[in-house]
């Protein structure tokens, strides 16, 4: 806080002596927080450690033998999990704060090594048979249980990513578009299914009050996947693109209403933007039919005009949510 500002306010008679004093003491006792710096270091450390161990093992496979490697990974993983179990606060369906700063990262390291452990077992011994599904289901189960049991949003995101991988699509944020081939039917339908499942999970978390703060993560992954699958459907299917558009409208209305209930600017924004892309695709498809240079002019004018319209809409919505919140 800038003490000068408060002195000025005090001189104007807007601030009592006591308030000014408390501002001054608060400012004098202010501590310099290293929270984010240390968190970054810890996270980098965990990443380096799990990555480095992975490579180390891979390179020395001939000299130390598979059992030893498995043992090492297993010990680290077990160590992390036993630390977490000893430290954790009692389980509750509400938000549980982590007991100390190290806890979150120990859990993360434990989960990462566990996934390596299972992957290694499967690769080396095909322990789970040739039904590859099982090798992904086990991490999925362990990750989801840990996410709920220890209340860790990062692990929950890992579980969601794993669920998607099990169903056959990549939902890693920056690879959502590049790693999936949205021209294949299977991916589109899987995306729709996964999106609906995640949105349902979000609804259940929020409604039944089961780890309510997890709802955002589910809703976030779910809404993006579902919208992208719908857009892919609109682009891919000549005959049924209007049906896909209708479906998208239903999804959009649902996400929009939820967003308003929660007062979430973020979901309102993505609904509006995805919806806009959807409408634009329909308009473009209709314009392409006209097969005429005028179509291009109309298209450009449409884009300019509609973007202005959406801006006005967003500004209105911004106002509306603000009032809805107060």
């Amino acid at each position, binding site marked *: 806080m800038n003490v000068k500002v408060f002195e000025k306010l005090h001189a104007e008679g807007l*601030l009592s002596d006591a308030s000014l004093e408390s501002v001054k003491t608060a400012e004098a006792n202010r501590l310099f927080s290293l929270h984010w710096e240390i968190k970054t270091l810890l996270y980098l450390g965990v*990443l380096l*450690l799990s990555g*480095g161990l992975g*490579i180390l093992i891979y390179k020395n496979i001939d000299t130390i033998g598979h059992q030893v490697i498995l043992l090492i990974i297993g010990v680290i993983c077990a160590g992390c999990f036993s630390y977490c179990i000893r430290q954790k606060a009692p389980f509750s369906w509400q938000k549980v704060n982590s007991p100390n700063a190290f806890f979150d990262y120990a859990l993360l390291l434990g989960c990462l090594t566990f996934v390596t452990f299972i992957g290694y077992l499967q690769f080396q011994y095909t322990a789970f048979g040739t039904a590859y599904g099982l090798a992904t289901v086990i991490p999925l189960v362990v990750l989801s249980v840990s996410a709920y049991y220890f209340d860790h949003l990062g692990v929950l995101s890992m579980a969601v990513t794993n669920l998607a991988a099990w169903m056959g699509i990549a939902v890693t944020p920056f690879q959502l578009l590049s790693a999936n081939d949205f021209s*294949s039917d*299977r991916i589109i339908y899987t995306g729709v299914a996964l999106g609906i499942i995640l949105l349902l999970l979000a609804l259940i978390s929020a409604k039944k009050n089961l780890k309510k703060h997890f709802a955002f993560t589910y809703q976030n992954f779910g809404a993006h996947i579902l919208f992208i699958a719908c857009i892919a459907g609109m682009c891919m299917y000549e005959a049924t693109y209007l049906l896909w558009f209708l479906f998208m409208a239903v999804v959009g209305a649902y996400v929009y209403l939820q967003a308003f209930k929660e007062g979430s600017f973020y979901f309102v924004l993505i609904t509006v933007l995805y919806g806009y892309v959807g409408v634009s695709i329909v308009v473009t498809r209709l314009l392409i039919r006209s097969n005429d240079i005028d179509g291009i002019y109309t298209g450009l004018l449409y884009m*300019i005009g509609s973007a202005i319209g959406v801006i006005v809409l967003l500004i209105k919505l911004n106002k509306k949510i603000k009032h809805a919140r107060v």
Partner: protein
Amino acid sequence: MLAYSSLSLDNLEIKEEAEKALRKECIDVPAYKAIEAAHPVNFYTPNPVIKIGLFILTAVIVCFSLGLLTLISFDMLRSEKGFASLCVFVGLACYGVLEIFIREKKLFRAGVDDALLWSAAGLLVCSVTYLYDGYSSPISWCFFTFAITLLATLRFADMVMAGVSFLALLGLAFTLLIKLGPVAKTVIPFAIMVLSLAVYAIGRSWMKQYAFRHYNWCLTVVSVLSLLTLYLAGNYYVVRELSNTMFDLQLEEGQSIPGALFFWIYTTVIPLVYLYLGIRKKDAILLRTGMILLAAIVFTIRYYHSVMPLETAMVLGGLVLTTGAWALIRYLKTHPHGFTYVEPDEPSLADKLKVESLIIAQTYTPGAHTPSNTTDFGGGTGGGGGASGDY
């Protein structure tokens, strides 16, 4: 000079300070309401998330307007010069709209104004440079970028403009010094260092001055960038590789540059100096820049000398980082010397959007992939929304 009313900017600061005091319970709600009423802020600033949407949409409008105008005047343009003139026109139009919006609609960091400013600056820089000498030499590039972004910074106090302006200034110095010929390769690193240090010193002293209070964020950006360039100007990797390409030294592998010892010491010492000063002065800018540059030391050394294999380095580094952080957290429990591990109480957008969990998801790849029946992973398109249907 500033496009915004100075009184409103002051009131905005007062309001933000009062909000902080309210959060810390130094003042009560009636006092806050009274302060808010006595210092009204008439800016229009939407929620940060909505702002991103407004930014994207405005950028879409500018792009399509440019496209439409090009299409309409296609016959008149004929040459590249004609197109450049059109870009000047659109850039000026963006600027005009921006001024009107700020005056009439009181936009302030609303997304629309940022997009208009960036596109105006971008269009003007490209087209003016082209119109000036026809082939866009690096010197005129840097000069016009510097001049236009500097003017934009002064008028709109925009952080990005300030940063670009500083980098363009360095670029200008670099391109001018290269003309010196063979002397250049010894002079340039030191010239850039001196320039960065000077800008840093000036920036930090202006930050404390009342007259520059509205430019505080611009000056912060410039200080961070100048600390980075101060380091990079003497970083061994940067100096060696850059002089190798720019001055055609034809260094063999393992061969080093004149004055290598100096640059090696510089490479390893400067980040530690930043860290030390950052901790001494409790200066977040120095501290965080120092932390980032620690990584630069590691990468520079590893590039030339393989001290140990990568995986051993990773494991050791990971161990050092985790135990170090663990020790720091324990040490900070009693708040020694005014430091703490307690989270700062300012609510941040990153928190609300759960950015941390997304980063974890980004760096994590599920262990065993389900083999798919179709083997067409990896080559996907973005959905292919058509030429004008998607952006």
